[in-house]
């Protein structure tokens, strides 16, 4: 029998031992990002936050989603899950933000360099197919329990679509447009920022949407390592076999998911329409 697991364990232990200062630094950074976002969401009274999110929904989408946002968030508050929901939202937004911060440049790199693409692709396949729970173990070993390992696992799990769709978007920019841009003496930077990224933007925004949705699913799971939020409510429901509690937590997640999905999706589609009007 081959025990790959043993080697992985040794490797992770070795990392934990020798890179402790690095992990501590990451922990400080991630923790401050998550806490700041959480503070922003928690500091104002709940109705202000609801109104702000509903306003955003109204600006970006239709009346239906706006009403759903108002009603859904009010329901969450009324059920008494406001704090958990905001904690979850803060973790989603900050992890997704950090995933995008790394994922989009990686995607650009993969689109530009065939070799980079060859390396990145299998890594992404691995990251996406590995059962999400598995990430929780090294996360705990590196960062202990709490929000930071939750964010860490979420970043890894949510990053692949950002990378993939950025690469796709950039390679879909028509060859003749790229050639024309080069023929007018564009620097590689000008080509990227004035042509490739704007043209790839709808695709990249689809990636952003997917990253956020994947972050949501992972954030709930990361309640298992004490990341808190709505996941904790759901987990309590499971472990204590309280179906009502589980359902209440679940429905809060669904409401949050719909609102996040519709609002982020609108950024991709409205853009195309705006150009034609």
């Amino acid at each position, binding site marked *: 029998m081959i025990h790959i697991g043993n080697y992985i364990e040794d490797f992770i232990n070795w990392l934990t031992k020798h890179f402790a200062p690095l992990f501590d630094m990451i922990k400080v950074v991630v923790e401050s990002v998550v806490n700041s976002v959480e503070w922003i969401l928690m500091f104002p009274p709940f109705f202000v936050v609801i109104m702000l999110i509903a306003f955003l929904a109204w600006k970006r989408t239709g009346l239906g989603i706006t009403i759903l946002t108002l009603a859904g968030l009010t329901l969450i508050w009324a059920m008494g899950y406001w704090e958990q929901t905001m904690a979850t939202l803060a973790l989603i937004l900050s992890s997704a933000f950090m995933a995008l911060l790394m994922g989009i440049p990686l995607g650009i790199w993969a689109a530009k360099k065939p070799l980079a693409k060859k390396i990145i692709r299998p890594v992404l396949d691995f990251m996406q197919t590995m059962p999400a729970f598995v990430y929780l173990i090294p996360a705990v070993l590196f960062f202990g329990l709490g929000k930071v390992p939750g964010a860490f696992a979420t970043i890894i799990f949510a990053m692949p679509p950002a990378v993939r769709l950025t690469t796709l978007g950039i390679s879909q920019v*028509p060859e*003749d*447009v790229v*050639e*024309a*841009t*080069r*023929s*007018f*003496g*564009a*620097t590689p930077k*000008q080509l990227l920022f*004035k*042509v490739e990224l*704007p*043209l790839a933007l709808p695709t990249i925004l689809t990636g952003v949407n997917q990253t956020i949705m994947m972050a949501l699913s992972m954030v709930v799971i990361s309640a298992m390592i004490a990341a808190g939020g709505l996941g904790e409510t759901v987990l309590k429901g499971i472990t204590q076999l309280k179906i009502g509690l589980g359902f209440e937590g679940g429905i809060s997640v669904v409401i949050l998911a719909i609102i996040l999905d519709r609002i982020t999706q609108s950024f991709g589609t409205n853009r195309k329409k705006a*150009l*034609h009007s």
Partner: protein
Amino acid sequence: MSKLKIEDLTLIFGKEKEEALSLLKEGKSKAEILEQTGCTIAVKEASFQIEKGEFFVIMGLSGSGKSSLLRCLNRLIEPTSGKVILDRLNITSLTDKELQEVRRKEMAMVFQKFGLLPHRSVLENVAFGLELQQVPETEREEKAKTVIELVGLNGYENQPTDALSGGMQQRVGLARALANEPEILLMDEAFSALDPLIRTQMQEELIDLQKTMHKTIVFITHDLDEAIRLGDRIAIMKDGEIIQIGTPEEILTNPATDYVSSFVEKVDRKSIITAASLMFEKPTVAIAGKDGVEGSLRKMRVSGLTTLPAVSIDKEFLGFVYLRDLLEIKSQGHHVIAKAIRRDIPVAYPETTVEQMLPFIAENGRAVPVVNKNNNKLLGIVAQTSLLIETTGTSWENITGNAIDHLQNEII
């Protein structure tokens, strides 16, 4: 000095370029090189010069390497060997930064598929080249507006480009290139994607624009009719090689290879061949006021002709004198030929085409005098036989060589 000079330019696609290049220098054929190295020779040892202000057309079928050759000029594709020299600047040895500068200031390109930015308006597209040069916004929009007017796009400034028709989109492409005020325009099958009616219209507009712009234009096409209509000179490419370079008339009248002739056959020559290329220069003339009746009769005897064109001392064309008229006025005791000149003869100009000269044959069965448009000076004579040969499509060889002597006699 020529504006653009291409020296021994070779472009090879494939992995073992160096090996393929040395095989090519040994004189191996394309097929042999492909077999030995797996490399394709896209352009083979092309050398030519393009003059300032010239409209130079490179014509060839798809796969002839014409578009690749064009892309070597601004190094969108790196040539494998050889040089491209712009004025005194060797383009092939420039650094990336210097090359960017050349692309920004000296050479602008127009593409078959337009290559416009779909997320920007017409105005922003036209100003794009200037934006890359970091020209301030108000200044570049002002410039762009001037060019937009030049290509007839006014009123469309704020439209998105993908809502425009093909012809309009290509106007944007042309305007974008012109906004940079380049010395050289590279046009890659610029009108090939347009439908025939729009294409002809764009060709005419480009010709009109060129009359005022005097840019050096390198134009790629697969359409010989287009090449002939637009080009001051045409280079014909086949399988990566330039097989002939010449003016449209040179190519039509003197195709270098069977390949070129097979193309040329399909072209309607009547509207291209001009009096200038058909006429016999310096014909024997009777000079009124210098050659008297006697002098003119002597000239006829020496040349064996019975009719001579009559010109003034300033070589201005007056008409024709006939042997029998001269003999008649001689018997009446006249000494000057003025009375014998038959005037009001229709004349052709050097640029008059065969098509336009046809009515002249029908009218009088006489040779057609060719005169300078400005001062009416006689430049030469087009024999009606030449006109008939051109219109009936008998090959040129038949009227060269021995036939010339015969013609000279028959001319007048």
